[in-house]
């Protein structure tokens, strides 16, 4: 069994796919090098990230399979799914034949897995626009901790730059140790090693308390339905929600 390893970046993945196509191989999977290699008999080959190769691959995809296909590939990459590398590879392989019509093949086994993952990532992206909870903390900035299934910090940040344009904020993905920082002018993604969460400012308590109180009040007790609540708002998100933690 053949496995390609890449550095975890999008360029790295594209380089590995490009290399695999050049070598005319069909790998079992393409995975970040820090994943566990649990196939005892597997051949693991590292491919280094190459910007030129990656750019060529991206050009090929958009030129032959359209912009939507590239977007699907990127969302699929952000999913952090262990199968993402393999799924993307098979998708591109099919695209080499079908060209721009690739996404009409909704039920094809090389397309459906991609569309399914893309839907999940976009769903969490949209959901998180509502679920990020900022706290006003010491240094006069607004801090939010999130723990999403997919690597969506970079794709939700632009929404908050438009919306919370006049406040400094941090959205901290505590699972991936990265954060989006915004200083009222620009935003960037940085690595954050410390897991320490900043403490609340003096006035924070007043509003978070008001919100928890409001949250309880608006529920209509005659229609109580915790199952339905969990269906829309799975428990795994609760720990970062002011009103539910």
């Amino acid at each position: 069994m053949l496995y390609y390893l890449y550095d975890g970046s999008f360029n790295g993945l594209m380089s590995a796919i490009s290399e695999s196509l050049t070598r005319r191989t069909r790998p079992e999977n393409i995975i970040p090098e820090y994943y566990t290699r649990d196939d005892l008999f597997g051949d693991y080959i590292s491919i280094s990230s190459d910007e030129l190769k990656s750019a060529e691959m991206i050009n090929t995809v958009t030129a032959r399979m359209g912009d939507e296909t590239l977007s699907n590939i990127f969302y699929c990459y952000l999913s952090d799914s262990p199968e993402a590398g393999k799924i993307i590879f098979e998708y591109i392989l099919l695209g080499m034949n079908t060209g721009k019509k690739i996404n009409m093949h909704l039920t094809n086994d090389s397309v459906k897995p991609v569309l399914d993952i893309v839907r999940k990532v976009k769903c969490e992206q949209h959901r998180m626009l509502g679920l990020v909870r900022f706290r006003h903390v010491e240094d006069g900035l607004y801090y939010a901790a999130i723990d999403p299934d997919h690597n969506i910090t970079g794709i939700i940040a632009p929404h908050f730059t438009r919306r919370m344009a006049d406040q400094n904020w941090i959205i901290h993905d505590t699972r991936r140790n990265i954060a989006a920082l915004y200083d009222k002018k620009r935003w960037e993604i940085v690595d954050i090693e410390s897991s320490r969460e900043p403490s609340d400012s003096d006035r924070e308590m007043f509003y978070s308390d008001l919100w928890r109180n409001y949250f309880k009040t608006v529920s209509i007790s005659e229609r109580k339905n915790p199952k339905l609540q969990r269906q829309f708002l799975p428990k795994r998100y609760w720990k970062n929600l002011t009103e539910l933690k």
Partner: protein
Amino acid sequence: MKTREKLNILAMSAKYDVSCSSSGSSRQNSAGGIGNAENSGICHSWSEDGRCISLLKILMTNNCVYDCAYCINRSSNDIPRAIFTPEEIADITINFYRRNYIEGLFLSSAVFRNPDYTMELIIKTIELIRIKYKFNGYIHVKAMPGADPALIRKAGLLADRMSVNIELPSRNSLEYLAPQKTKRNILNSMNDISRNIEGFRIESKKVKHPQKFVPAGQSTQLIVGATPEKDSKIIKLSEVLYDKFSLKRVYYSAFMPVSSDNRLPAVQAPLKREHRLYQADWLLRFYGFSAEELFDAEEQNLDMDVDPKFAWAVRNLDKFPIEINNADYEMILRVPGIGVRSAKKIVFARRVTTLRFDDLKKIGVVLKRAKYFLTCNGAGFGKNDYNELSIKTGLLTDGKDKNTGQLLLFSDRAALPDPESVITAATGEL
């Protein structure tokens, strides 16, 4: 009175209004301002009843001069009363928004002194929020029935959505239970809003950036089960509201006794009925059905056992089965178990492949209900001589289906933990 107490009282009094949507507006943030509106709408939380929380839903005051029998805030009800100042509302809204608790504000009110006076208080509040605080997030306000059209216009220029609640689906019921609110006043105010929306629409064709008037449109609410109106009367009213008043949404609220009054039923109306009305409403808005089609001559209420599309299809078996690989999109939409999303996928995917039952499953079609009404490349699903009775019994005795996204809109009893409330809860995005 402390802010916390006031918020308790005025949120408690507002929560029976079921509208929670924050969609339909794409207001941009301004330089130095805060907030914007997202066209799709965003849900921020879900309360214990499973309903979405998108907007801070509060009343300006619950001090009411009216005494409508069904309303928790009626003047004869013995409940604590409070009134917010515009500054207080602005402060809570902005601070909740900065923490991303909410998508914006839904400001309603009891009729305090008179409709004009209440309307002026509401305008003062949203003016403060929009102008002083430069807030560009979502604002939904209630228009007080019978308020001066000039005031309604003023409010609409600041808000994203406006609504006037009809509450009771007929003039007789209104006269009986809400004598101070006349049908004429309600319809006049709705008309004021739709005329202004129409004006804005025409204006936006002529000038580049016209003054926006409730870009997310107008909505209303009907209470179901407090009065004797049949489902057909309710759905026909909704059809008129969508067609003639260009309403964006009609909300249905199963009656719940919140004040004792011997003119009203003592028990809660079934949530199931509310659910079926929402399904019928969806058929009007997204599936090309007319209200007339959903009822037959004898039966003026919706079937509680099966969804209204299914009920329609078994009454019209002569139109089926259809061949999924060449039927019109409009007809595919009418197949039970196929939603808008699946129908679109079907017409898209069949351009490059011939669809089989297996493919339909992958697309998300609920075959359990759809199988009776279609063929795939000439082949039916099992036997093809279905009649109304065999289909209905087949469906009702079928085992549990796995819960798919499709079922959120059209589900039967077996499919979801509690299908009745799913639609009401999902409305934040619709």
